[in-house]
């Protein structure tokens, strides 16, 4: 074991900052997901796919599912937020997007510390995740 006495026990400030942003974002995302799902199953807001017909579609591959139901892919769900099933995507998107926020929050810390390598790595991670989120890189579908 390395016995470096200069090290201190406990997380670095940027690690704590990351944890705080993650905690808040995760809680908000989960609460939104549970609330919107409640609106969906309790029938408070009408869904795009009637609940009793949903089981006729979920055995299809994603291409047939989207084509038969005329559902847009990518960020097209934003245009369908009037339907209960698509309301659930807000929570899902928040959960999938929180890591981008966490990285964005710690970038100034690396800049302040002049930690160039980790600054570059964090910026690259944000670019990679933003590219995935934007739909610029996507699968072919079946």
């Amino acid at each position, binding site marked *: *074991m*390395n*016995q*470096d006495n200069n*090290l*201190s*026990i*406990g*997380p*670095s400030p940027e*690690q*704590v900052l*990351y*944890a705080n942003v*993650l*905690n808040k*974002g*995760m809680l908000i*995302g*989960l609460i939104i*997901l549970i609330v919107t799902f409640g609106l*969906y199953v309790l029938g408070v807001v009408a869904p795009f796919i009637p*609940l*009793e017909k949903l*089981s*006729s579609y*979920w*055995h299809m*591959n*994603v291409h047939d*599912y*989207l084509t038969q139901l005329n*559902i847009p*892919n990518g*960020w097209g769900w934003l245009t369908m937020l009037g339907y209960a*099933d698509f309301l659930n*995507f807000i929570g*899902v998107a928040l*959960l*999938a997007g*929180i*890591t981008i926020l966490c990285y964005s929050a*710690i970038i100034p810390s690396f800049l302040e510390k002049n930690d160039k*390598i*980790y600054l570059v*790595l*964090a910026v*690259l*991670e944000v670019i*990679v*995740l933003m590219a*995935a*989120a934007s*739909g610029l*890189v*996507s*699968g*072919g*579908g*079946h």
Partner: protein
Amino acid sequence: MGKCNILKPGLLVVVSLVVFAGTALATSSAETAALMPAGDHAWWFWPIVLFIVTFIMGILAVLGGVGGGVLFVPIISGFFPFHLDFVRGAGLLVALAGALAAGPGLLRSGLASLRLAIPVGLIASTCAIIGAMIGLALPTNVIQLSLGATILGICILMLTAKKSEFPDVPESDKLSSILKIYGVYREESTGETINWKIHRTPVGLCLFVIIGIMAGMFGLGAGWANVPALNLLMGAPLKISVATSKFLLSITDTSAAWVYMNQGCVIPMMVVPSLIGIMGGSFIGVSILKVVKPTFIRWMVIFILGFAGIKALSKGLGW
């Protein structure tokens, strides 16, 4: 003591019965559903079965020391009527939610290392995008077949891989020294202060190329591969490896989850019951961890995974 003796086997019997009853019910109903396109059940039937099965999965995942995603994809794709595209999308979101929920605590405790996770996460998340793209482009039977082979490989890994609590790292390699990947934590069980560092960083980072691709391709999460890579290969202490691996999933699975989401592979009626089920089961799992025998549960998890792997192989072969 006597009460505990009755509780342990009783609990195991109940868990086992519910798992097998759930999968049997799912299998028979999946076959029925295949014959009747609209299905023979009320709309709420499958979400409720999904919730029950994922709840049990959550318990087993904690007790068996595996992530929820690795159980979710093979079992749900093998025994439920959902297409693999949606199962993988849900699997990634289930693994992601678990990692997001655990992340803040692991980071604050200092057990998860952000400095270790950032370079590894960049490689794994980039490759997970590639894996997701490959996974969505390949025919379903090829993915089923590869998934089955991978799951059986994971079983072998679980049976054979050793763990090292404090691996011997004589000297940091150059790359990890430049990246300043080292740290110190207090081992609560002994009160000792442990200084740690890693080695073989370039090889370890290369391994995360494969881990990222597999995570994205199958929607499995990647804890099963992260821990051996960080612990056995790179030499991080077991606790640091487990915690960093769990946190790492929140980065790796995010990129792949976006690809699946943008392709339309998210059905909320599958995702939300699974997510709540796994998370609820995990809470129960943590609370009964002291009562049950983890070794037995681990064997049970390997058995269930093996069964699901064979089922995936047979589905891929069209049997």
